[in-house]
């Protein structure tokens, strides 16, 4: 099942061992998008590397930006102004919604439903309008900097964002109406691709796939970073860890994200948006590992600095890298159409795997 196929999300090659229609084994072959981001990091300054972190997981580029900037701020003890933290949280949660919308659109397209794909992209265009208002780009933002964000919000952003929040809340109900209790959808997703808790932990799975098994682990609550401890939101969990549960966890997460955005828009203070750091920025020599909860799992950067303007070594740990390794275990014994549904429910984005 080759690198170019309408149902593989990116360039993934699967070697399938089949017995008629039934899949016996599925081995993923990756590396078709290996862009050597870690080698590039050794020859770029910290500010020059931020656009590359967008292209790691381009669907949720704000998380890539933040995951790179956060360890450096922790290592060099740089304080971040309040307003910048609120702006960061709003951007990240809006990006989480955009990422889950793409996932929902392509997931239903894989299962054969074309209408949710168009609805989701319609919503996503509205989110991208908000992003374009702030930083001028639709998809790869280059917005966060060490010590804050690069530009302040324009005046028309907050009213537009509030209007979007009111517009979006009934939309999630609309998607649930179409899909969640639809008998065809249930037939294709219920009790398919069951993931054991022990297998998930053994393979270091993280993100909504882990929460679909019922394990209550979300870095925003268990290891709070930024100002997430000021907001009131819940962590949706699954019960039976099948494809339907993973779908339902993500749809509920969209609801919780819009709740966070609403609270942040009400609480956002005035103030500075970036701490002043020297133009030639040299963090102290040392090593640090810090991680955040990206839409696909845990994204962490291990950065080794040596006191110069460029990092010595950057290691990128992404959620999809570990999530993809459970695919052979998940799809034993299912038919090939179910394999498509299972792969889509894992929400793997190949640039994250290949870096």
């Amino acid at each position, binding site marked *: 099942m080759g690198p170019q196929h*309408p149902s593989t999300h*990116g360039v993934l090659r699967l070697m399938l061992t089949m017995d008629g229609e039934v899949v016996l084994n599925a081995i993923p072959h990756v590396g078709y998008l*290996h*862009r*050597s981001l870690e*080698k*590039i990091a050794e020859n770029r300054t910290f500010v020059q590397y931020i656009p590359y972190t967008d*292209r790691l997981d381009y669907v949720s580029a704000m998380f890539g930006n933040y995951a790179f900037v956060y360890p450096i701020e922790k290592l060099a003890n740089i304080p971040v102004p309040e307003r910048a933290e609120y702006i960061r949280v709003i951007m990240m949660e809006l990006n989480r919604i955009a990422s889950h919308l793409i996932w929902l659109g392509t997931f239903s397209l894989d299962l054969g439903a074309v209408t949710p794909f168009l609805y989701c992209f319609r919503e996503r*265009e509205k989110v991208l309008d908000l992003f374009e208002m702030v930083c001028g780009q639709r998809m790869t933002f280059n917005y966060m900097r060490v010590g804050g964000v690069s530009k302040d919000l324009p005046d028309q952003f907050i009213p537009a964002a509030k209007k979007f929040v009111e517009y979006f809340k009934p939309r999630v109900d609309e998607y649930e109406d179409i899909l969640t209790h639809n008998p065809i959808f249930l037939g294709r997703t219920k009790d398919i691709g069951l993931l054991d808790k022990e297998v998930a932990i053994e393979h270091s799975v993280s993100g909504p796939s882990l929460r679909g098994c019922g394990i209550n682990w979300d870095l925003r609550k268990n290891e709070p970073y930024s100002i997430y401890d000021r907001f009131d939101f819940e962590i949706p969990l699954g019960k039976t860890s099948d494809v339907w549960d993973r779908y339902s966890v993500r749809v509920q997460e969209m609801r919780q994200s819009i709740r966070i955005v609403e609270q942040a828009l009400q609480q956002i203070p005035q103030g500075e948006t970036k701490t002043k750091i020297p133009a030639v920025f040299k963090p102290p020599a040392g090593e640090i590992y810090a991680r955040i909860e990206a839409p696909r799992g845990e994204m962490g950067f291990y950065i080794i600095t040596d006191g110069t303007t460029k990092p010595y070594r950057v290691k990128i740990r992404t959620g999809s890298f570990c999530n993809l390794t459970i695919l052979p275990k998940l799809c034993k014994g299912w038919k090939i159409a179910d394999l498509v549904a299972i792969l889509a429910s894992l929400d793997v984005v190949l*640039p994250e795997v290949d870096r």
Partner: protein
Amino acid sequence: MGIIKKFPVYVEHIPGGGIVTTTLDGVLNYARANSMWYMLFGLACCAIEMMATGASRYDFDRFGMFYRASPRQTDLMFVAGTVTKKMGPRVKRLYEQMAEPRYVIAMGGCAIIGGPFYYDSYSVLKGIDLVIPVDVYIPGCPPRPESLMEGVLKLQEKIKKQKLSDWA
């Protein structure tokens, strides 16, 4: 009759009857340009912009273009995204599987010259035109949907200038 007013180059009106003549070139090029079916070949970030251009707000269907999964049924390939050395031979094979006349649009900086990954990268192919011939280059990282449509319109102009003797 409206079509005669629109395309005076292609159509001559013979007085006295309902006969319309044109050149074979004109009709074939018109048909090819306005109904290009493209292959889903998104590799990286530009793929999402390609999908967004085909979706609700910027619609490709009004140009007569929609996606097909198999290369045998398409005549346009958007190379959207970074092409690595591992993927290069596969792109060549897919290009050879497309039936002639076939066109290639290189979308985004990475497909043109390697993009931001030109320096310090050991695994990125520095431009897709090292492997297959390209008709239109669309710069951007990623290019906006409007740029993409401009690129498609330029390709349509290029097709309308083609002569049958080139292909037959």
